[in-house]
């Protein structure tokens, strides 16, 4: 049996890596990917605790999170595409206008 703490470690590690990605990368697409990593970290936590307490509700939450990730990816990438079409860039620090 793997202790629950290890799952939390894994989760925190992924979260940290995700945050590092979000903070340091300039490419918005990779930032979005890092957000996916963070969501994954959350999912691991949820499922691990779901297992711990012997209920599937954590898994249900994880499913909803994945749904949310799908919606977020669709809209986020849609924004990136719209932005790229106008500004020819996907770099976060060049996305400095509020309106186009």
């Amino acid at each position, binding site marked *: 049996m793997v202790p629950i703490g290890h799952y939390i470690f894994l989760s925190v590690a992924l979260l940290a890596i995700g945050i590092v990605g979000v903070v340091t990368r300039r490419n918005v697409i990779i930032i979005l990917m890092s957000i996916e990593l963070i969501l994954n970290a959350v999912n691991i936590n949820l499922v691990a605790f779901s297992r711990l307490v012997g209920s599937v509700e954590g898994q249900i939450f994880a499913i909803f999170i*994945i*749904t949310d990730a*799908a*919606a977020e*990816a*669709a809209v986020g*990438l*849609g924004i990136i*595409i719209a932005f790229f*079409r106008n500004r020819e860039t996907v770099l976060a620090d060049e996305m400095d206008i509020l309106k186009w």
Partner: protein
Amino acid sequence: MLRQYVPILIFAVLAMAFPAVTLVLFKYIRPDSRAIGAKLKPYECGIPPEGDARGRYSVRFYIVAILFVIFDVETIFLFPWAVLFSTREEGYRLTPIYGLASVFVFLGILIIGYVWLYRKGALEWV
């Protein structure tokens, strides 16, 4: 539960290893490759390619991918419903009317979206 997946894991490793090993192995068996010059260029009907191929393609591809993701999520939600609708596991089966109602609302909202897409022409390729 994990035990059921062990054969699959082994199978996956085998399935991955077989082509990989063959690829590597036959590298040493087949005659040396002496591909030089134009042979190493990407195929462009015999004309030097103009510009990087990793170029831009129609945004339609993206719209299709979005629609796929959305509909994929919807389908994934329908799978457990379909199972529950007529499962043989004790005590899990949905009451038909309730099951039908819950999914009809779900699919209804989806259909609204679909109709919107249709009207907007987002389902047209060109």
